[in-house]
């Protein structure tokens, strides 16, 4: 066989592998829409998205998911408030300040957090954290938005941290040296040179971390309390979108309105994460740090 032919063969082999995952993904999306869209025969999009009541098994049933969307958004934002500063600052510390020996120990530990199974974190939230914060803040119930956000923050910190760290680490050395040469202190250099230069990477990291929190199921199913109401305080129980799907899909009769409504929730969730990914892609493309001259 000629060498060119082998090359061709390898090429088409890899093409096939790439196509396989793309096909699988598109089939999932097609299936999601095929099973979710029939709910629109029963209610309008407006009633579905803006309806306040989720009573899927009543007769007549209500399929309003506004409270579920509110739950998801609130939990994600609150967890972001905790995970973004912690994640980014840890990344700065690891990439810039920590001595190589400390970084060598801390970094694998942070990455180990990422490999913690979500059901373990959820269980921890339910059994350990819930009674603790209930006593600490003297609130009626520990399974609430705050608990779930805390657990989600715990899960998204590793993502945010390791991606940000890569971004910070790849800032050209010359930029830093130039800053020092101008008489800037280390702190000024980090704040005014290194962070701006790696901002696109940090933003991507943050968005990917948040989208992980948004799609996470087990933790919110176990620790968020599961009340389908629009929260008025951070200590209210909430029921994010993935928790509803996970809790109800097993019992929803095949191809019933309830079943279609749950798939429609899946579509909403898909749209959310898709938008998140688009934003991440846009930012990393638009604010890309090309060379050393563009700061």
């Amino acid at each position, binding site marked *: 066989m000629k060498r060119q032919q082998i090359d061709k063969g390898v090429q088409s082999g890899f093409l096939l592998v790439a196509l396989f995952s793309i096909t699988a993904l598109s089939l999932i999306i097609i299936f999601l829409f095929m099973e979710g869209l029939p709910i629109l025969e029963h209610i309008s999009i407006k009633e579905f998205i803006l309806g*306040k*009541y*989720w*009573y*899927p*098994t*009543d007769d007549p049933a209500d399929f309003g998911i506004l*409270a579920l969307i509110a739950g998801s958004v609130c939990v994600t934002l609150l967890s972001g408030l905790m995970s973004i500063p912690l994640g980014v600052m840890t990344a700065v510390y690891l990439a810039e300040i920590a001595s190589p020996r400390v970084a060598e120990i801390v970094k694998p530990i942070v990455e180990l957090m990422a490999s913690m199974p979500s059901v373990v974190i959820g269980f921890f939230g*339910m*059994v350990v954290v*819930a*009674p603790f914060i*209930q006593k600490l803040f003297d609130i*009626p*119930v*520990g*399974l609430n938005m705050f608990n779930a956000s805390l657990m989600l923050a715990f899960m998204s910190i590793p993502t945010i941290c390791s991606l940000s760290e890569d971004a910070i680490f790849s800032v050209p050395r010359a930029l830093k040296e130039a800053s020092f040469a101008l008489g800037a202190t280390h702190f000024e250099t980090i704040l005014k040179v290194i962070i701006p230069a790696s901002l696109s990477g940090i933003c991507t990291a943050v968005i990917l971390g948040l989208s992980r929190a948004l799609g996470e199921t087990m933790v919110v*199913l176990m620790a968020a*309390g*599961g*009340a*389908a*109401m629009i929260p008025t305080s951070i200590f*209210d*129980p909430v*029921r994010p979108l993935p928790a509803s799907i*996970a*809790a*109800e899909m*097993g*019992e*929803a*009769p*095949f191809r019933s309105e*309830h079943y279609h409504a749950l798939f429609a929730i899946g579509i909403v969730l898909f749209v959310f994460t898709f938008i998140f990914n688009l934003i991440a892609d846009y930012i990393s493309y638009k604010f890309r740090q090309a060379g050393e001259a563009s700061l």
Partner: protein
Amino acid sequence: MNKYTTIFISIIFLLTASSTVFAGELVIKGSTTVLPIAQKAAEAYMAEHPDVKISLSGGGSGNGIKAIIDGTASIGNASRFIKQKEVNLANTKGVYPVPFRVALDAIVPVVNKGNAVTDLTLMQLKDIYLGKIKDWKDVGGTPGKIVVISRDSSSGTFGVWKDLVMKKERVIPGALTVPSNGGIVQAVANTPGAIGYVGLGYLSDGIKAVKVGGIAGSEENTLNGSFPIARGLFMFTKGWPKGDTMGFLSFILSKKGQNLVKKAGSIPLF
């Protein structure tokens, strides 16, 4: 006969075998509340009759009855009686569903161990779950916010609670929902102001059962009919059962079968 014909015939045989329910194979579908009973009974029955193959699946009471009417299952499990709508549907298809009550189930309201309340009326329970009663002091307990804990709306336990306690009215949206009986036990044990409800089999040390209108939820009170939040668990067949279907049902209704019902956490009929 040559080799290919044999293979061909065996393939045809396999295809027909897998697409029809024939003697020696039982398909059971329906309520997840009845599922543990069906599972225990099926294991024991198959051990006694190795030639019978039983396949089990959940899907909810409505699905179980639908499967009987469509003929996709030999037995349909339901944690409630058949609805008039379903009877009408069966009649139009020329099917006569036959109910068998195989077990009883009681649902007991539970509170945290530290709670002073020991007795609530059905009316008080309903008002608590409607959000009308918000504080324990209104039902004779120590002042504190009531944390209402309920089950997911698809659960059979929730269905019975809704029928017998809520009388079809809606549980407040602010109620915490937990995906399992075990989850309720966990949440109530950890939350001083909580109230929840579980199947009789799930009562445990960390939580306190509340009497309903002065009557404790127990096997005895369920059997004599005085405990109000109880229900029968049913198996439905399409027409009068024959062959293995009959054999399986008689097994469940026997002393041996009823012992298995008890093991599965429900209340035996006798």
